[in-house]
């Protein structure tokens, strides 16, 4: 059956139609022929039975009167029946009475007629009928009929069947050619479209629908719908791919921008940290200044109070205050002088430090030279042999000494560096102190002037002093508020520094992230290029 599977649908359909029609025709014809043959045999047996009966009837008289010639004459009538081969009359049980055989036929007749009835042999029908006269059996008639009639009919039928089959074959071919195309044509069209699509990979092609409502029409529609889906999916994929490419480019760009921004932010945040630190320091300084200023104000307030309380004695006290102010100014100046001398001694310390440096250098040189000397001496001692042994010990000691002095100079150098550092700090502090002193001098000067002005105006406006005292009190409160605010600012500045450091760390992380991202995107881009 393999060859059948490989046949085209068209040939299969034609073959199936032809097979079915042939089988139906052959079965129908066979059944018809079998029926006809059976009917023919029955009718043959009946017809020849009737013939035998007629002959028997006509032979009764001849048989009764023993007239063989007459009986044979009667039997001669069978000449008209070409299929009757032989006939024989038997009288009672006395054997053959009269017989007939067709020309050119030698027939062996049975001695006894045998049982009534008929039976079909291979090539003939044998028939035995009774000869009856007045309801009494007087003998038997035997008839032998050839089956040429049946054979002739069979030949005729077979010929007809062959002709009908050939006609049906031609008609089937003629009819099946256009009929099979009803089924095979749309399937073939679908198959060729599918082949074309798979060869060209062109999913915009469509199978032609013949507008059929059967399964093939459904198949074609489903096939086209499937192609629609494939095409749509392909387009979407292409678009997504393109937008992905664009997005990837944008991401790479963005990551680059991010990296540079992160670097900028990093440097900026470092600056911020520095600035915050600086601000914190400045704020601390300002706070201290405010504290000092407050102290001054407090004092002035107390003084103003004292002035207010002792308004009457203010003149004296103002005089004393003037003196005190002058003394203060003088003290200030004295402090300034002391500061200056301190600065000078600092400078000197610094200069001495340099001198010590030079001394250390010298000592170092000495140490190096003594070391060299010690080495030479030890070589010489070695040359001197046993006598130089004691000298070698001395040389070794000298070398040790040189090493120790070298170590000591290094130690001194370190100490000196510490001293220089400390003196530098002291200088700075001293400068600041001198500034404060400057401010103190200025304030004491102003105070002195104020005291003088007050002393002049004490008698004129004690009330003004009271106002001054209260306003001074208010000023104190304000300074307190300023001090509190400064404290807050200081805390904020410190927090600022902490935050700036945290920011720096965060930015550092951000920068690392940006680099990682950049690397990642570069890998992705490379992968993408390899793909396409």
């Amino acid at each position: 059956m393999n060859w059948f599977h490989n046949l085209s649908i068209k040939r299969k359909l034609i073959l199936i139609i032809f097979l079915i029609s042939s089988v139906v025709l052959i079965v129908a014809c066979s059944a018809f022929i079998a029926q006809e043959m059976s009917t023919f045999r029955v009718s043959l047996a009946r017809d020849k039975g009737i013939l035998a009966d007629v002959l028997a009837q006509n032979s009764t008289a001849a048989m009764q009167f023993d007239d063989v010639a007459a009986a044979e004459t009667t039997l001669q009538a069978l000449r008209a029946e070409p299929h009757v081969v032989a006939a024989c009359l038997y009288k009672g049980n006395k054997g053959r009475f009269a017989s007939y055989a067709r020309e050119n036929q030698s027939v062996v007749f049975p001695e006894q007629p045998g049982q009534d009835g008929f039976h079909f042999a291979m090539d003939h029908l044998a028939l035995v009928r009774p000869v009856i006269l007045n309801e009494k059996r007087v003998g038997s008639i035997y008839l032998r009929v050839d089956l040429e009639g049946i054979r002739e009919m069979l030949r005729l039928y077979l010929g007809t069947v062959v002709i009908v089959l050939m006609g049906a074959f031609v008609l089937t071919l003629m009819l099946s050619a256009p009929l099979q195309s009803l089924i095979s044509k749309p399937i073939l069209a679908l198959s060729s479209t599918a082949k074309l699509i798979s060869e060209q990979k062109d999913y915009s092609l469509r199978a032609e629908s013949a507008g059929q409502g059967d399964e093939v029409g459904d198949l074609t529609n489903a096939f086209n719908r499937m192609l629609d889906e494939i095409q749509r999916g392909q387009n979407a994929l292409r678009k997504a791919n393109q937008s992905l490419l664009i997005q990837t480019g944008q991401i790479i760009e963005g990551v680059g921008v991010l990296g540079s921004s992160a670097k900028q932010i990093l440097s900026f945040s470092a600056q911020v940290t520095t600035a915050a630190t600086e601000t914190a320091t400045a704020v601390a300084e300002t706070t201290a200044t405010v504290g000092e200023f407050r102290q001054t104000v407090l004092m002035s307030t107390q003084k103003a109070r004292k002035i207010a309380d002792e308004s009457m004695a203010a003149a004296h006290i103002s005089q004393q205050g003037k003196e005190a102010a002058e003394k203060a100014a003088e003290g200030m100046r004295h402090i300034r002088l002391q500061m200056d001398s301190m600065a000078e001694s600092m400078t000197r310390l610094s200069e001495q430090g340099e001198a010590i440096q030079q001394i250390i250098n010298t000592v170092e040189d000495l140490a190096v030279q003594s070391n060299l000397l010690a080495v030479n001496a030890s070589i010489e001692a070695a040359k001197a042999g046993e006598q130089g042994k004691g000298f070698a010990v001395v040389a070794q000691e000298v070398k040790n000494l040189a090493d120790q002095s070298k170590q000591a100079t290094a130690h001194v150098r370190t100490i000196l560096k510490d001293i220089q550092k400390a003196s530098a700090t002291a200088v700075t502090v001293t400068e600041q102190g001198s500034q404060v002193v400057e401010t103190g001098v200025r304030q004491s000067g102003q105070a002195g002037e104020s005291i003088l002005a007050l002393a002049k105006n004490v008698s004129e406006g004690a009330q003004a002093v009271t106002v001054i005292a209260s306003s001074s009190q208010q000023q104190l409160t304000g300074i307190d508020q300023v001090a509190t605010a400064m404290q807050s600012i200081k805390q904020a500045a410190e927090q600022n520094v902490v935050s700036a450091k945290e920011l720096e760390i965060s930015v550092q992380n951000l920068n690392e992230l940006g680099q990682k991202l950049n690397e990642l995107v570069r890998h992705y881009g490379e992968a993408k290029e390899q793909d396409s």
Partner: protein
Amino acid sequence: MNPFTVDRLRSWISVLLVAGWILGVFVTPCKANPIAVSEYSVKAAFLNNFIHFVEWPLSAFPDPGAALTIGVLGDDPFGPLLEQAVKEEKAKGNGVVIRRFKSVDDVTSCHVLFISRSEKERMFLILKRLEEVPILTVSEMEGFADHGGIVNFYIENNRIRFEINKESAYRKGLKISSRLLCLARIVEQKSVKEAR
């Protein structure tokens, strides 16, 4: 084998014995003729057979239950042979009766009448008497059928044959089967006066 055929065989044996006795006692010149032995047995059988091929008018059977009668007029040449021949016929229907007549005047209610050679002298008289009576007249005398008799036996090629006068039968109202006529030699009626 049915009992009738056994009986028939026995009758044939007895006929042969009788024939042998006759041959032995009377040395006859027709010794070579085998027919002579069984001539009357055949004729007896023929007489019996005729009744199957002849139809009588209803007037011949005034009584529906009456038996068919075969009569022998004059000297009886059959002996017991006729009785033996009709033995089987007796068994069915109304049966067959054998009657023997001395004179034609005695002949009443008879259907088949065999006229013996002994009545040769009175043949015309008898035929005249029975002219209108529905009786199948049978004889073995030359000219019998020609002169108004219906069936007449004769010998041809050592075979017993018979001739039939259709016209005479028709006149008497008897219908003879064509099958019987086929076997017979048909003869024409000759004028009775001419024969005289």
